[in-house]
């Protein structure tokens, strides 16, 4: 059985990470910017699982770290979406272009 090669997995991870960076920088909707962060986290999880398999780690440390990344992503989503709801109460709409109160 031929397994997927490590360089292909890392290349896929790099491409997905680049797409996430583009989405975060280019989108003007604050929720879609957060979703782009999720795409980046998924790319990193992919490379972690690939390394765990590549090194054949008996402790499966790559998988454990990916699990912690998922847990912290869940925490980030909770706080981030709470912030967005609080923000939306003061200034309706989800565009980041109108949020210029901290700009001098």
């Amino acid at each position, binding site marked *: *059985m*031929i*397994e*997927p*090669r*490590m360089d*292909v*997995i*890392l290349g*896929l*991870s790099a491409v*997905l*990470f*680049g*797409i*996430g*960076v*583009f*989405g975060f*920088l*280019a*989108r003007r*909707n604050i*929720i*879609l910017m*957060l*979703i782009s962060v*999720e*795409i980046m986290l*998924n790319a990193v*999880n992919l490379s972690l*699982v*690939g390394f*765990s*398999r*590549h090194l054949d780690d*008996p402790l*499966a440390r790559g*998988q*454990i770290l*990916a*699990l*912690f990344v*998922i*847990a*912290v*992503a*869940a*925490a980030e989503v*909770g*706080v981030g*979406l*709470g*912030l*967005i*709801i*609080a923000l939306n*109460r003061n200034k309706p*709409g*989800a565009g980041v272009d109108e949020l210029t109160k901290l700009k001098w």
Partner: protein
Amino acid sequence: MFFTPQAAFYYMAAASVASAILAVTRKNPVHSMLWVLALFMHVAGIFLLLGAEFLAAVQVIVYAGAILVFYLFVLMLLDLPGEVARPRFGPHWPFAVAGGLSLAALAWLAQVETISPAHAEVATSATVEISDVGWSLFGAFALPFEITSLILLAAIVGAVVLAKRRPTAS
């Protein structure tokens, strides 16, 4: 044989890249979310091919089942009717393309430098099983696991405090 693990991997890789590109370029935010759902499912399939069954299940249950539903919930709670008519990208989007391309190229160069093609084959004999993940999680990594629960508790309290409606103090 047509359905080899290799073919399945390349299908999932191509589908995940395509759905990620569609997710960041669709105008309607709900369509973007659904493409992200497709991306998460395909990444879970790649996890399965790599022998990480537990993580594939967590990916589907937590990411696709909980986190994405939470996003959709807030998206529909905010109710953005004019979102489709607005420009989806800022005027600086070529710089965003350059930033994404340069970071992807950086990661690509790093792996070309470190992973020589002779060592690129993933270990064929999968000796790590799902029970090993459990032993590792509750054995060597029990303390970080408990700290994760504290992080999640802090996030729950923070989300409630942030989203609570305060009486206006003016």
